[in-house]
């Protein structure tokens, strides 16, 4: 009899999938990137052709490209010349400006104050950390909500 008994907690504990440090950092980075997003959804007009620019019936197949007509010729050249992404600009700055104060040196350094922790569910101060994913929670009720909704639900 005795050998059949087993602790539920030990059994559950072995099954628990725990995110490793790298996965947690990945999640955190995704959350930070989301804070910089301009929009949550895709362009609602993406499938839409402006009536004036919609292809005319007499147009051939070869002219079906939706490129907007250039009003001024210089504007077209101009767009090409200055089409640089933010990361390309950062790289350029990194290469060109090695000394002296730059965009990089101006960034605020990490805080010397201890980090504060808030419950991911209700927003009040939290004392506990989810064993699996590292999110913070403050009480059993919030832990339940967290496990039902976020914890490991969409793993990065």
């Amino acid at each position: 009899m005795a050998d059949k008994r087993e602790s539920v907690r030990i059994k559950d504990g072995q099954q628990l999938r725990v995110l490793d440090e790298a996965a947690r950092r990945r999640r955190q980075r995704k959350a930070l990137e989301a804070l910089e997003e301009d929009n949550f959804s895709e362009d609602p007009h993406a499938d839409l052709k402006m009536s004036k620019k919609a292809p005319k019936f007499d147009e051939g197949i070869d002219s079906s490209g939706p490129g907007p007509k250039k009003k001024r010729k210089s504007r077209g050249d101009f767009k090409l010349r200055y089409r640089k992404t933010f990361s390309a600009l950062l790289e350029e700055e990194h290469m060109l400006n090695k000394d002296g104060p730059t965009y990089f040196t101006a960034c605020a350094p990490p805080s010397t104050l201890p980090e504060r922790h808030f419950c991911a569910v209700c927003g009040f101060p939290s004392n506990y950390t989810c064993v699996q994913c590292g999110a913070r929670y403050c009480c059993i009720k919030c832990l339940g909500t967290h496990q039902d909704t976020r914890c490991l639900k969409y793993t990065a």
Partner: protein
Amino acid sequence: MATLILDNGAGTAKVGFSTDSEPKIIPNCVTKAKNVRTRIFIGDQIEECKDLSSLYYLLPFQKGFLVNWEIEKQVWDHMFSKDVCQVDFNETALLVTEPFFNFPSIGESINEVIFEEYQFQALHRTQAPTLSCYKHQTDKVTSGSLFGTLVVDSGYSFSHIVPFYKNKPLKEAIIRVNVGGKVLTNHLKEVISYRQLMVMDETYVINQMKEDVCYVSTQFKKDISIARLKYPENTISRDYILPDYTHIKRGYVRAPEDSGKAKGDEQMIRMNNERFAIPELLFYPSDVGIQEMGLSESIMHCMTLVDKELVPHLLNNIVLTGGNALLPGFQDRVFQDVRSMASDDYDVGISTPSNPLTYAWQSGCDLALDPIFPSMCVSRHDYEEHGHVACINKFNVS
């Protein structure tokens, strides 16, 4: 010759002639409305839109830097047209702002657009805090001790702490905190969507709600414990009724005594600890995992980077500008924090202009009237003769 002042912020552009008393505040973006499929809205044309739910934004700025010229051109075309400013390019000089440490290639593209696309007669490029410092100097001229001014400009993409010696920014001590109004709104959206109602697409509505109900706490721990209480004792909780754009044209706060369940079809968000926990990010970016100092700590860190003799002047002349300075309690909080961290020997003086949003623009007007202003400009002739070099030599940028 007329001078046009353009404080080209990533969130809103403030534009107007130096002779105007107030600038026009134009959202610096192109907007598409989900329910209006026949047109797009450029800048302030969004005011013509009746249904502001699920707006899609095209922004010319990324992380505070001008990267998308296709969109910026549309907004500027609109701003300079007769709908907004009616600029006669042959008779106008332009004063335009850009962020600190603007990348050289962006600066060149600004020169090129201003002189070659629009054909302005003259150009002066500077930064909004530099303008604010200039105006603060003249506004406070009586007090005399203006060796140093510390401008805290907390805007849409980020917040800058900029120490000035007289009118000169001390570049090596400028600090940027990567938290601005955009991060606050996005974080509020995320939090509300998880806790109450899916609002991830409602940037406009939630931003409005943030402006209506959020505040900066000066007693964070106490406010937390108040927020835990139930209604009559909980003086923080507010019920915010969302607009539906048929009957309710704009979101509003319901009076605390009427709070309770949403009535009829209306949609309600209860703002409790969110009211002050969201703006807290400005002071504790680490609350969401941004490993940077907050504003107050950065101010003190900045003091370690400047000459010791300048510190008392800077601490006594702190100016708060930018949209986030409109949050209730912002100045009190900065004062409280800085006072508690700075040495007791120093006086701490903080002021917020009556309109922190347009202060830099107002200052631009003053500067344009200054007799030295023409000498700070690059004329189109100079530009055509010497190109970007003329601008690099003249403007105190990067």
